[in-house]
C-alpha cells in the first residue's frame, strides 16, 4: 500500500469514530480497549465457504463440504488469534526529538511485547499504514513518521495500532492519543529578517574584542613550544616534518555578531519562519548570532546548543 493511501479496512473506520480514544501515559491493550471486526476479505471468505457448502450439497460430495467447514473453523479461530496478537501489548512514548514544521518528524514509541506479536501495523491518523513482520518478546523502539504543520509543542494525531494476522480475516485495532509533546521549530523559509541595533551590547563586547582572547575553534599562528604548553596544541605534523616543536596559537575570528529579530513588515509566523531559516544558515556558516524577540533576548553565540536554544525560542514564541 503506497504512501498517501488511506489506511486499509475501511469498514473499521466509521466504527473508530464512535469508539472512545484511549488516553494515558501508557497504553496496555486488552479486552477493554481492543476492537475487532471482520475485514471485507473475511466476509468474502465466508461467502466462499458458503459457496463450497452449496456445491458439496448439490454434488453430495464430502470434499467441498469438509473444506467449507475448515474455512469456517479458520474464520472462528482467526477471531481469537487476531485479537491475541495485540492483547497484552504495552505502548509508551519515548523522548521525542525536536523537529521542523512541514518536514517529516520521527515520533518515538516503545512497544513491550509479552509473547509475540505478528503483523503489527500502525499509523498516525490520518496517514498511511506502516508495519513490521513480527515482534518477539521484549521491548521494541518504533518511530512514527508524521509531518507537523505548526510550530510549538505539538502532539501527532491519534495513534492507531492494528493487525490482521494471521489470515487477514479480522482487523483488530485500538486508538490512543499519544501523550508526549514534541517540540516543533518553525519551518525554515528563506526571507528577510531584521537586524537589531546593538549599541549597548557592542560597547560591552568592544572591550572584550580588543582583548581578543585565545579562542579554541581554529589556530591562527605558531610559536616555539614552551614547557607547560598543552600537548594537544602541539603541531605534530610540523614536528614530524622536522621543523621543530611548535605550539599552535588559537584566536576566534573577529566577526561582527548580529542580533536577529522578526521583520515587523511581515506576518508574525512568516517572519519566524524566515528567522528559523536565517539561524540555520548562520549556524552552518559558523557565524555568531543572537536573537531578539518580544520579551526575550539571546546574546550572540555559536554552536549547536545555541542554535537549538534560539530555535526553541522561536518555536515557543508568542
Amino acid at each position, binding site marked *: *500500500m*503506497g*504512501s498517501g493511501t488511506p489506511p*486499509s479496512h475501511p469498514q473499521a473506520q466509521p466504527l473508530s469514530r464512535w469508539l472512545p480514544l484511549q488516553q494515558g501515559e501508557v497504553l496496555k491493550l486488552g479486552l477493554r480497549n481492543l476492537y475487532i471486526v471482520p475485514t471485507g*476479505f473475511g466476509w*468474502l*471468505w465466508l461467502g*466462499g465457504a458458503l459457496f*463450497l457448502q452449496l*456445491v*458439496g*450439497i*448439490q*454434488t*453430495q*460430495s*464430502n*470434499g*467441498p463440504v*469438509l*473444506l*467449507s*467447514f*475448515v*474455512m*469456517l*473453523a*479458520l474464520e*472462528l*479461530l482467526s477471531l*481469537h*488469534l487476531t485479537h491475541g496478537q495485540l492483547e497484552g501489548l504495552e505502548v509508551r512514548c519515548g523522548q521525542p526529538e525536536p523537529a521542523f514544521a512541514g518536514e517529516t518528524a*520521527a515520533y*518515538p514509541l516503545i512497544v513491550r511485547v509479552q509473547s*509475540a506479536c*505478528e*503483523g503489527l*501495523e500502525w499509523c498516525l491518523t490520518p496517514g*498511511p499504514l*506502516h*508495519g*513490521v*513482520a*513480527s*515482534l*518477539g*518478546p*521484549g*521491548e*521494541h*523502539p*518504533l*518511530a512514527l*513518521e508524521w509531518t507537523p504543520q505548526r510550530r510549538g509543542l505539538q502532539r501527532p494525531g491519534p495513534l492507531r495500532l492494528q*493487525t*490482521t*494476522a*494471521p*489470515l*487477514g480475516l479480522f482487523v483488530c485495532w485500538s486508538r490512543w492519543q499519544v501523550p508526549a509533546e514534541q517540540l516543533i521549530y518553525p519551518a525554515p523559509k528563506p526571507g528577510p529578517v531584521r537586524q537589531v541595533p546593538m549599541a549597548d551590547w557592542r560597547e560591552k563586547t568592544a572591550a572584550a574584542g580588543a582583548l581578543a582572547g585565545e579562542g579554541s575553534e581554529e589556530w591562527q599562528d605558531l610559536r616555539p613550544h614552551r614547557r607547560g604548553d598543552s600537548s594537544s596544541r602541539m603541531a605534530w605534523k610540523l614536528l614530524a616534518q622536522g621543523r621543530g616543536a611548535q605550539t599552535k596559537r588559537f584566536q576566534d575570528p573577529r566577526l561582527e555578531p548580529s542580533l536577529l529579530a522578526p521583520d515587523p513588515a511581515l506576518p508574525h509566523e512568516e517572519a519566524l519562519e524566515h528567522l528559523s531559516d536565517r539561524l540555520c544558515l548562520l549556524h552552518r556558516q559558523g557565524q555568531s548570532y543572537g536573537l531578539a524577540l518580544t520579551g526575550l533576548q539571546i546574546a550572540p553565540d555559536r554552536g549547536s546548543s545555541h542554535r537549538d536554544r534560539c530555535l526553541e525560542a522561536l518555536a515557543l514564541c508568542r
Partner: protein
Amino acid sequence: MPLNTVPLNTGPLNAGPVKAGGGWLPWLAMGLLTAAAWGVAPFSVLGALSLTLLVLTALKLREAQQRREFRLVSLLQLVTAGLFGAQQAELGSTLLQGLAVLVALAGLLKLELGGGTNLGTLLRRSGQLVLAALPMALVLFLLFPRLGPFSNLGGLGQFGAAATTGLSTTLEPGTIANLTMDRSPAARVAFPGGGPPPASQRLWRVLVHEHFDGQSWRSLNAGTAGSDATGTDTDGAAGADPNLASSQTPGATQVWLSEPNGLAEVPWSGEGLPLDRHLRRDGQGQLRYSGSVGVRKLYSLAAESSPAAWRRQAATAQDLQMAAGTNPRLETLAAGWRRQGSGGAKAVALAEEWFRQQGFRYSLTNPLLPQTAPLDALLFEQRQGFCGHYASALSALMRAAGVPARVVSGYRGGTWVEPLGGSAFLDLRQSDAHAWSEVWIDGEGWRTVDPTAWVLGGPTTVGNPAADSVHSPLGTAADPSGPLDWLARQWWGLDLAWGEWWLGFDQRSQEMLLQRLLGPYREWAGALLLVAVALTLALGLAVYGWLRRRGEGDHLQQELNQLLRSCARSGLVPQPGETLGQFGRRLRLARPLLGPELEDFVDLLQQQRYGRPGPPQRQGMDRLRRCGQSLRRQLRRSPS
C-alpha cells in the same frame, strides 16, 4: 543477551509502508491446482466452472499488485480446490487438493507476516492452522445436518460429470476392442466376510443392449449422466430401511467403488440386495445409481436368499426385434435351428455346436465389418472377432431363431489384490471390459451365455493360458507383475480404503451416528453441535498455542536442558556458579568416553548462542541436535 529478548525490529526508522506481495507461493499453489485439474471433464458444468475459475485466478495473480488482490487470489485458489474435490475424490487427487489448500494458506500467511518468513516456516504455520481448525471442522462435518441435493438445478450427473472413459450404451463392433487397450481403473470391489466368487462367475454386468438395428446394439433403458431412475425400475434399495447404511452396514457382501464414467448404470454381479438409497435394480438386471454419476460411486450390496427377480422378468417383443434382411445368411442359419427344435435351450446348444465347428478365432485386430450384412461377414467370411462381435452374432442368431436374446456389456474377471494394509479387493480395469449374451430359456429365465468361450484363443476359452491366469483362484499368483505393479496395487488398496471411508459418509451415515450418540434424545442434536463447536474451538486454540510455543521457543536452551536432565539421571549436576565450559570439563573427566562429542556440543552451543547469525546457524543447529542425541544415548547406556 538471551535469544528470546533480541528485538527483531532493530531499525525502526526504516519501517516503511505496508508492502504487498505473495512471492512465488501463490504460483506454487497454482501449479498444484493445475496438476489437480488433470482428469476434470471440461464440458461438464462443474468442470467448466472450476477450470474457468482456475484460469481467472491465474490471470488475477498475474496482475495482482496490492495485498487485497493477493488475498483474493488465495481465496479463489481455495474455492477452486474445493470444486476439484467435488469432482475427484481419489486419494491421490485429494492429497493434491489438500496440498494446494496448505500452500494457498501459506500464501495468505506470508501476506500478513511479511517477506522475511521462509517457505518451511510458512508451510509449518499453515499446517498448524489447519490442524487447529480440523477438530471443529470434523465436528461440523459429522454433526451439521446434511441436506439433499437441489435437484432443480439440473441433472446431477451433468453438474458433476467427470471422466467418461468406459462402456457405451451403444455396442458397436470394435468398441470394446478399443477399451482393452485402456488400463485405467473401472471399479474395485471388496467382499467383506468372504473371498471373491469363482472365476467362472466373475461377470460384472453394467448395461443391457436390447435394441438391434442389424449393425449395433443399443441400450434403450440406460440412464445417462443427469437422468434419474426411470419407470422401468422394479425395486428400490434396502437402504430405504434406516437401519441399513451404505458401505458400513454389517451384512454387506459386496462393497463397490466405481470410477466416474458418465453412466447411471454401475457394475454388479447381478445378484444382491442394494444397500444404498441411490441404487435401483431394473427389470433387465441393470443396477442404476440415481446420485451424481459424474463422480466416484461407493455402494454396497447384501446377500439375497432368493434369485434375482430380473432373471425371471419375462421377455418382451423388444427382445425378439430383428432388422429382418440385414444379415440374410445369419437369418437362414437360424431359421434351420428354428425348424430343428423348440425352446431356447435347444437353440443355444445348436449354436454352441455350430460355433465350435466353425473354428472361429479370437482377435483384437479385426478389419472393419462392412456396412451391409456385417454379421454375415463376421460369421461366414472373416471368422475372427472380439467378444462384442460374438455376443452380437449369437444374440442375433437367437432372435432370428425365435428365441428372445440380448447383449450385455460389463466386465469380466479382474485382478485379486491383497494389499499390505486394508482389505483385499478385486481390481477391474477398462481392459477387462467384456460383452456376452443373455438368452431367454423357457422355465428358467434369462441364461448367461458367453460365446467368446466357444472360439479359439478367447480369454474365456477353456485351456487358454490367458483364461487360466484370469480364472486362477487368486489372480495375483499367476498374474505377471513387477515391483511397480505391486506398488500400484498397494496404492489401489489404500485408495479403496480411502474411498470407503471418505465417500461412505453421507446423510444416512450421519443419521446413524446421531442415533448412536443421542438415542431417544435426538432433539438435543443442535445443543450437542453447539457444545462440540465451542469445545473444539477451545481445543483448536490450545493446540495452536502449544504448537507455536513448541516450535518457536529457545531451541538451544531446550537442547541444553535435555542434556542436563540426562546428566542429572547419571548423578552429574552442575554446581552453583559453574559455567557450561567448566561443567563440560568436569564431565569429560568423569566420563572420558563422552569427551570429543561433549566438546563439540559445548563449542556448537556457544557458537550458536554467541556466534554470528546467518545461514550456517541452521546447519550448526542440526549438528548440535545430533550431537545432543548421541550424548544422551551414551549416557543412557552407561548411567554410572
